[in-house]
């Protein structure tokens, strides 16, 4: 059946797309022409030799409502609604915009024609690949005006030539899939740079998510022209080219670190005393910081594109970057961090974790508590520094920041659990002080007479604890509760 429908097929090297299209137009054919090259496929629907629809597969996904929203043509809720309804179909998006009066019919036609020309222009540059023409019924009722093959080809060839010129000028690092984003350190007013409206629009859309091809489509500016503008913005150091593969790898690596740290946190959650909870938090923080340091040694901006960097250089870099912060924290607020050292680019918190061999009871708890607070500050500050350096204010950066905040809120819950216990213990100690008066000194924190951690843990710690405790009961001492 399929053999009967396919009336022509072959190699693009033997017969180019231009010739195939002209031949089909001259003979007034109706059917679908499929052109494949690598992962990309183009299907062109013809009706009596005229182009009535075009579909491209294997390229980048194009979020037209999102881009129109960035350009101020749509409000965010309207863009989201169109995204949900159209499911990535550009023609459906445009049609819905026309129906709602957000775009004129004429503009929709121009946009559809531009998209067709753009795709054909791209396919005209394919050297290797195959084509097949299927004689089949073309569903009519498409919104696009039938396009004359000759004029479409003429414009597509002109645009393809423009790309060749761009390549000849030496702009070889920019392709239609290139994604650019604003450099994080740009804080000057770009209006003073004398940029044209076109440049400003490309700059607006260079948010680290939108490929060049999509920018071209939404601005209806040929891809080659957008490539030139992007190059200018790169020269002005306003944008940078995003390595999507590297960023995906980086995101996965950071996700793994967060997941591992969350797992460590959960493992140490079921503890029998406050010292163990604090120790668990110190281990979680230390593991997380070391994971992040190892990650940054690999993905830091200054380490990229240099091949295999000697380990000693990576260690020096990490020490130079993070030791000052650690020293500052230990000098100003958390002297316990003086015992933390950096060995081979990683934090060594062993001195803190083995403190239980030197001190006991309340004093140990106080040391641990100070370490928890200090490491928590160090962890947060390091993560912010790393993320800013590695991905800046990009989509990936924002996503990771969100996941990080969620993880920190889980950590915060554990810290608060201890803080509540501590507050309760202090209130009790003060109460005893008042009652006992001159009878003798009050026991050290954590000594006999302090609130029962196990009881508290049972009530607050387990997942079901939240629901089982009476409202506000955690703030009362056991005596008050029993009364």
């Amino acid at each position, binding site marked *: 059946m399929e053999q009967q429908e396919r009336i022509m097929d072959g190699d693009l090297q033997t017969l180019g797309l231009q010739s195939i299209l002209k031949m089909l137009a001259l003979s007034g054919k109706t059917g679908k022409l499929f052109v494949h090259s690598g992962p990309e496929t183009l299907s062109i629907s013809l009706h009596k030799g005229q182009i009535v629809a075009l579909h491209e597969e294997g390229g980048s996904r194009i979020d037209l409502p999102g881009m129109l929203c960035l350009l101020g043509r749509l409000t965010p809720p309207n863009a989201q609604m169109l995204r949900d309804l159209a499911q990535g179909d550009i023609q459906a998006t445009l049609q819905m915009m026309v129906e709602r009066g957000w775009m004129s019919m004429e503009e929709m036609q121009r946009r559809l024609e531009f998209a067709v020309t753009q795709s054909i222009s791209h396919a005209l540059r394919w050297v290797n690949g195959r084509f097949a023409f299927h004689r089949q019924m073309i569903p009519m009722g498409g919104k696009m005006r039938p396009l004359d093959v000759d004029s479409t080809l003429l414009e597509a060839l002109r645009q393809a030539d423009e790309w060749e010129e761009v390549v000849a000028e030496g702009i070889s690092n920019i392709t239609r899939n290139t994604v650019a984003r604003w450099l994080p350190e740009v804080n000057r007013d770009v209006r003073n740079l004398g940029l044209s409206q076109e440049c400003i629009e490309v700059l607006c859309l260079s948010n680290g998510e939108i490929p060049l091809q999509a920018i071209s489509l939404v601005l209806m500016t040929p891809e080659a022209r957008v490539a030139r503008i992007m190059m200018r913005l790169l020269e002005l150091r306003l944008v940078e080219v995003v390595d999507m593969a590297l960023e*995906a790898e980086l*995101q*996965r690596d950071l996700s793994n670190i967060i*997941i591992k740290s969350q797992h460590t946190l*959960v493992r140490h959650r079921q503890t029998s005393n406050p010292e163990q909870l604090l120790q668990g938090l110190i281990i979680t923080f230390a593991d997380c910081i070391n994971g992040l340091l190892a990650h940054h040694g690999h993905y830091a901006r200054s380490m990229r594109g240099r091949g295999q960097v000697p380990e000693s250089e990576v260690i020096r870099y990490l020490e130079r970057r993070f030791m000052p912060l650690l020293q500052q924290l230990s000098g100003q607020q958390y002297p316990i961090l003086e015992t933390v050292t950096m060995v081979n680019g990683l934090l060594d918190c062993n001195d803190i974790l083995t403190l239980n061999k030197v001190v006991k009871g309340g004093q140990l708890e106080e040391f641990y508590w100070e370490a928890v607070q200090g490491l928590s500050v160090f962890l947060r500050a390091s993560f912010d520094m790393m993320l800013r350096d590695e991905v800046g204010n990009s989509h990936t950066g924002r996503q990771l920041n969100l*996941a990080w905040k969620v*993880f920190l809120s*889980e950590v915060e819950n554990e810290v608060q659990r201890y803080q509540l216990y501590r507050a309760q213990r202090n209130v009790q100690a003060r109460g005893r002080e008042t009652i006992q008066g001159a009878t003798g000194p009050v026991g050290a924190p954590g000594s006999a007479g302090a609130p029962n951690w196990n009881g508290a843990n049972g009530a607050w710690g387990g997942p079901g604890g939240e629901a089982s405790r009476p409202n506000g009961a955690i703030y009362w001492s056991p005596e008050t509760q029993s009364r």
Partner: protein
Amino acid sequence: MMEPTVLVVDDSPTVRKIVQMTLQKEHIRVITASDGLSALTSVADEMPALILLDIQLPRMDGYHICQIIRKNLQFRQIPIIMLSGKDGIFDKMRGRLAGSTEYLTKPFDSNELIQTVKKHLVNWQERVPVQHEGMRPRLRYRG
């Protein structure tokens, strides 16, 4: 093109967020639930193509949820990947007996997660029946 929907059931917001972020990057729609009961509601409402199910959950554990889903004719085809911090043979066996398709041990690697999910999403459109208005399937929790 329609994207497959994956339901992530975990009481940890961090795990939910990371899994969501990782799978969305692979063009997979992710919905989440933090406990067993809301997980069952989401299964009935959204008919996911796959479920990632944590074992230790508040109110109802993962094994129990898995058994309920497997007993329902409408949903029994949905692959269920168990997520657990325990990697003992006993836990894996228990998961298998409850009807899980695969078992992922926490802390899992993002690449491993993507591969496992993609493996079980092959032909997902054939498995998930088209849901019509007024035909909303129900999942009953007894006991």
